[in-house]
């Protein structure tokens, strides 16, 4: 029963599920999908890509229709916000604005936009343009989310982005990046490789081309230290992969870009856990393109232990043994990837102190954010 609901969900998300579901299977599917913000995606797969012969009971249909309504409005708002931001800052830019991740999928009309709900709009600009962009955004109502001195310092010195900016009325959050992973990691690529991997959209902004979109999504996932949205992100990768598998140019471009930027391993991990968690086969024609030797032995076993668990659906109906240990290992791994050890110790101490304060005070500090997000997201 427990494994079943994840299998049904991945089957639907990859367009591979057939057969009918019992009422309780539908109920569990909705719960698990909703917990991962995947209900709109499930709905869009089942209602819009009507290439299936599911019988959907009316009470299930109600939830699917509801989540599609939510997605439609949300995507409209995202497109408008992107257009608004672009008109306000394009004058300050020395190159066209690039929209990344969720908002990027939406303005690119990528299939990964299907049912995708997110909380921030991620932007990529030239590092030299950041001060001007920040001033322009301040002027049009976007203010920094955090007053904490530590956060400000963390972002400015070590990160690949500036502290999130929130619109004082609409609540929209912008993450303005100048690279795709933290500078302090030592792994941040020459961003020109990505800046030259973009395509235009009808919204006057650029997005990464499909191969670069897949690569960025894989890097983002496998450089994380926490995987609350891991299952959802893997579902993105599944859809992003669909966009390129039948296009030899894009497949070749993916491997070239991954090799040049030093992220072949992230592509390997993406393929591996798409197969293991989403049961999505990646053909040998594609996997033979890796130039570096693929991981094996203990390293691979450790990866399998960690990612086999943290990328699984995270819900009480999906029983994953030792998930806690895997999450802890993933947390350590993610931090080690991002920071040299001495900085990591300082950073962890600061985070730990905050989490202790939070457990005592009941997260008073952040609760207003959570509520605002709920209103907007759900």
């Amino acid at each position: 029963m427990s494994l079943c609901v994840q299998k049904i969900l991945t089957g639907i998300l990859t367009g591979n599920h057939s057969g009918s579901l019992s009422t309780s299977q539908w109920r569990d599917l909705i719960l698990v999908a909703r917990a991962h913000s995947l209900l709109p995606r499930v709905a869009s797969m089942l209602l819009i890509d009507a290439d299936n012969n599911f019988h959907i009971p009316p009470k299930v249909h109600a939830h699917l229709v509801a989540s599609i309504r939510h997605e439609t409005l949300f995507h409209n708002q995202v497109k408008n916000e992107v257009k608004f931001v672009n008109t306000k800052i394009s004058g300050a830019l020395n190159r066209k604005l690039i929209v990344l991740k969720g908002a990027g999928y939406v303005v690119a009309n990528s299939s990964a936009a299907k049912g995708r709900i997110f909380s921030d709009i991620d932007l990529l600009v030239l590092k030299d343009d950041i001060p001007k962009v920040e001033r322009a955004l301040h002027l049009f109502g976007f203010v920094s989310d955090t007053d904490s001195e530590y956060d400000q310092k963390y972002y400015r010195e070590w990160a690949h982005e500036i502290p999130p900016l929130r619109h004082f009325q609409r609540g929209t959050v912008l993450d303005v990046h100048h690279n795709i992973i933290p500078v302090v990691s030592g792994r941040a690529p020459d961003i020109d490789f990505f800046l030259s991997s973009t395509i235009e959209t009808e919204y006057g902004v650029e997005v990464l081309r499909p191969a670069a979109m897949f690569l960025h999504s894989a890097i983002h996932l496998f450089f994380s230290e926490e995987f609350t949205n891991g299952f959802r992100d893997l579902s993105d990768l599944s859809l992003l992969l669909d966009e390129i598998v039948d296009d030899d140019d894009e497949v070749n471009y993916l491997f070239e870009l991954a090799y040049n930027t030093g992220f072949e391993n992230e592509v390997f991990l993406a393929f591996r856990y798409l197969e293991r968690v989403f049961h999505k086969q990646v053909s040998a024609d594609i996997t033979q393109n890796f130039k570096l030797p693929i991981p094996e032995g203990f390293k691979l076993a450790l990866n399998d232990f960690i990612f086999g668990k943290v990328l699984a659906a995270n819900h009480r109906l999906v029983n994953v043994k030792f998930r806690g240990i895997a999450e802890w290992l993933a947390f350590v791994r993610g931090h080690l990837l991002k920071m040299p050890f001495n900085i990591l110790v300082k950073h962890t101490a600061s985070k730990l102190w905050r989490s202790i304060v939070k457990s005592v005070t009941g997260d008073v500090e952040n609760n207003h954010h959570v509520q605002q997000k709920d209103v907007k997201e759900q």
Partner: protein
Amino acid sequence: MLLSELADTQYLDAVKKSELNIEFGLISVNVSSSFSQVTKTIAELYRDYKVSLNSDWFDFNISVERPSNFRRFIRRQAVFKLDGHIPFKPLPSAHAYPLFEWGMNWCVANFYHKYLIFHAAVLEKNGKAVVFPAPPGSGKSTLCASLALSGWRLLSDEMAVLDIESGRVLPFVRPICLKNNSISLVKDWFPETFISDVATDTQKGDVAHVRPPSDSVRRCNEDAELFAVVFPKFVAGSPTEVFSMTQISTLNMLIENAFNFDLFGHQGFEFISSKLPNLLLLEATYSNVDELRNILESEVNN
């Protein structure tokens, strides 16, 4: 099976183990709580509702529990959970029951976008449904309780649920939430009616919930024809006066009181615009509930 037909031990066992579903017609909700104050109040207020045990379906599974952080040892608190997830801040444990009701409202208003939902009371008489949208303080719930306990059928105290396909209003029958002075008023007017213990000093002031009439609960699957939109306005000491409203100001005020109008885009706008010309649109200033009820009754009996 009705909740009142369950043996006490059976009920308590089910509600503690998350095995109890309350059937609202519109939706089915799995409810549980570790607070005896909550389980006792549910048993009283939802006495006449259909329930099922270990059913293979629910639309939402909600609970009110004690929080798990250290603060629980300092101050007693209650948290609302939807499928184990905590969407908002804890409240003092004395507000656990209102938290349960408000949490359930939140689920429907935030997720159940199959229907167009307005913040409004809905009551029906003679097959004609009257929608009472109103901001807090307008006396909506007092009026709602008064009508519901005087022979009108209660469809909802908080949410007007409109099916844009059939054009009809659907019941979502729930206990009526009274605030502050109206609690003692309703107790005086209808001494035989069950009203829950008062939770004092909540974010809405003192609140208590009124058990909905059993006939309204029994008919929770019967939708109704829209007849009127009435904006009640309680003004102490005022005579009862009823003004007719224009379609455009009604539309504006409805939108102000909508939970999910934005999610329906053009469809929602077209739906409301096509309905308004056929409805009675009124604003009512009153201080005497009986007088207003008489006016409304003469309208629906016409």
